């Protein structure tokens, strides 16, 4: 075959640095053995999917992120989403809650109830889940440094509703390492923060076996600028860090690895993302088996939510984001994710309106029910290009993981700010490419239009929410047993100073309505605060 002159085609280089040929064929995949490297769905190394029949048996879970204002307001939105056919909840907390501050903390004031709901005490959590059958749904709590406290509150609610903990399903995001890299809700230094994660895994593996105590988020690392390769590589190195923490407590890998969950991003080049997920599944299975010696195949599966895509949405021509969302959902479905969530088209501006949230949900439902995405497993498997690209992605992810290990592991790399710098440099380089037009974004640097102010319905922020939440908190404080609270906090402090598991003591404290801020205050006293490495 005559080779085309190089100037005949525009060079195609993926974000991960892989150069794409115009045509692929059998020669490109000849040395990828089906049995060992691809395999049947539901079997090691799980390249094609973690279950033998995937969506044919059960479509992906649809879980939109939501929450705002006070717990009763959020409760209304939750009920509405469940009525619309959503099958799980993903709870958004406001920033003070995410950072362990009570609503009456002076540093919290401007942020109470803004980007999620405010939780100060167990009373708020009770109201958020009033009349919601929590044994029938799985709930994802998007919370990190104080995940232990939110888990305790959620379990206390279950107890009050008469639901045994062994039936409680859900996930606490609880991935603190990625918070230092992107997203920024960190409080304590790295090591005690990881200890809290270990405490939660130990507690759940014993008492709440269907709960995922942490979900490792490549998502936010990618949103902060990382390439798809870095997204997976850093997430795996983070997961490995938590695994070592749990193994150090003498808990065998097969006891908890089956409960490890991941959260990944879906915007970007379609093929690159699909290959990323297939490579990720294969590599994770190998890492768990080879590096950590797992025996049970259930320990080796990469269970994930693949969703969001916020980083791909644009402020310009916002309705285009509806179309982008549909393609991102397609990526997610072709990737064999277990759970899907979509950023809504107005999300570059505001908390999604009901209308926008509904369009996102319908997008996923249309894919599942109209387009045949649930007909057969891994429909792109066996494609010359996809199998070749899956292997290329895997190689690069391995190399990137080795870089982190060579640096001294994830804890050191984050403590020093090495990862943060890698990711923010990447973000800067990409922004420059967008601004020069080299990296095309429709409506931003191509097909640009003079726009009227777009018709976006802004989520109304109710400034009264601060006062209302302060009042609710004041009432609880006035009615609780102060001695009980003081004793519980003291016991918690004493436990935090030892190696003993803090979870039972957090539970005790939340049940007597100690506030989130009081419990966090105890940890701040014992653990201190994280010092951010600031280097550009």
């Amino acid at each position: 075959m005559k080779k085309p002159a190089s100037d005949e085609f525009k060079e195609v280089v993926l974000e991960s640095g892989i150069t794409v040929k115009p045509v692929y064929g059998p020669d490109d995949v000849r040395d990828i053995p089906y049995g060992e490297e691809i395999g049947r769905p539901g079997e090691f190394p799980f390249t094609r999917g973690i279950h033998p029949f995937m969506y044919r048996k059960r479509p992906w879970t649809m879980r939109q992120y939501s929450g705002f204002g006070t717990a009763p307001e959020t409760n209304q939105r939750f009920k509405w989403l469940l009525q619309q056919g959503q099958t799980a909840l993903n709870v958004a907390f406001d920033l003070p809650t995410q950072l362990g501050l009570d609503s009456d903390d002076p540093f919290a004031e401007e942020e109470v109830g803004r980007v999620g709901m405010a939780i100060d005490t167990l009373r708020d959590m009770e109201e958020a889940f009033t009349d919601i059958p929590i044994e029938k749904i799985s709930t994802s709590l998007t919370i990190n440094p104080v995940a232990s406290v939110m888990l305790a509150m959620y379990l206390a609610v279950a107890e009050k509703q008469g639901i045994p903990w062994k039936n409680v399903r859900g996930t606490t995001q609880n991935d603190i390492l990625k918070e230092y890299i992107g997203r920024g809700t960190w409080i304590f230094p790295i090591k005690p923060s990881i200890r809290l994660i270990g405490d939660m895994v130990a507690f759940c593996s014993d008492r709440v076996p269907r709960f995922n105590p942490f979900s490792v988020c490549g998502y936010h690392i990618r949103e902060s600028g990382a390439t798809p390769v870095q997204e997976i590589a850093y997430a795996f190195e983070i997961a490995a860090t938590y695994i070592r923490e749990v193994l150090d407590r003498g808990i065998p890998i097969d006891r908890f690895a089956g409960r490890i969950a991941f959260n990944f991003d879906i915007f970007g080049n379609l093929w690159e993302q699909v290959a990323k997920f297939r490579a990720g599944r294969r590599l994770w299975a190998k890492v768990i088996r080879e590096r950590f010696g797992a025996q049970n195949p259930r320990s080796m599966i990469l269970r994930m939510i693949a969703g969001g895509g916020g980083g791909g949405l644009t402020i310009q021509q916002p309705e285009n984001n509806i179309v982008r969302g549909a393609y991102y959902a397609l990526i997610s479905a072709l990737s064999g994710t277990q759970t899907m969530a979509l950023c809504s088209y107005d999300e570059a501006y505001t908390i999604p309106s009901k209308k926008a949230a509904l369009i996102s949900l319908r997008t996923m439902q249309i894919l599942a029910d109209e387009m045949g995405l649930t007909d057969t497993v891994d429909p792109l498997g066996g494609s010359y290009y996809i199998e070749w690209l899956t292997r290329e992605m895997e190689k690069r992810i391995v190399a990137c993981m080795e870089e982190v290990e060579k640096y001294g592991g994830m804890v050191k790399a984050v403590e020093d700010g090495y990862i943060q710098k890698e990711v923010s440099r990447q973000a800067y380089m990409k922004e420059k490419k967008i601004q020069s037009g080299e990296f095309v974004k429709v409506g931003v640097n191509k097909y640009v239009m003079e726009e009227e102010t777009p018709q976006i319905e802004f989520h109304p922020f109710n400034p009264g929410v601060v006062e209302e939440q302060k009042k609710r908190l004041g009432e609880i404080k006035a009615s609780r047993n102060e001695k009980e609270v003081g004793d519980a906090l003291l016991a918690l402090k004493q436990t935090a100073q030892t190696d003993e598991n803090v979870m039972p003591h957090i539970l005790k404290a939340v049940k007597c309505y100690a506030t989130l801020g009081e419990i966090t205050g105890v940890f701040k006293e014992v653990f201190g605060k994280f010092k951010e490495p600031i280097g550009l």
Partner: protein
Amino acid sequence: MDKNGMQSGKRIRVMIAKPGLDGHDTGAKVVAYALKDAGMEVIYTGLHRTIDEIVRTALEENVDVIGLSIYSGAHLPLSEKLMGRLEAEGLTDTMVLVGGNIPQKDMEALKGYGVTEVFPVGARLDDIVSFIKKKVEE
């Protein structure tokens, strides 16, 4: 002023600040890199700064420009607070720019507080650089 952001031999000093609890720092860092590449001296505060801390740093570092980056929706109260504190400290010459997730409808209010310019998501890096250079020269 020359192309390296030097003005009568002195480099323009810019502080990029993240006030409050919002942890979205990618935009702040991207702008910081762009200003550095344009030859300016950039001080980045890191996350979770109080307005008082930001004003103190502005005083200590003797900056020409403060760039506030806010994505949480709390830009109005935070900017108003900052402008009040700057005035109380006599830092009325310091140029304040606001960036982040800022709706069109809030631009006028921000300028009313004394913010010089707003560069919301989607703003061009070149525009930010040339705006600062031009204004400092004035």
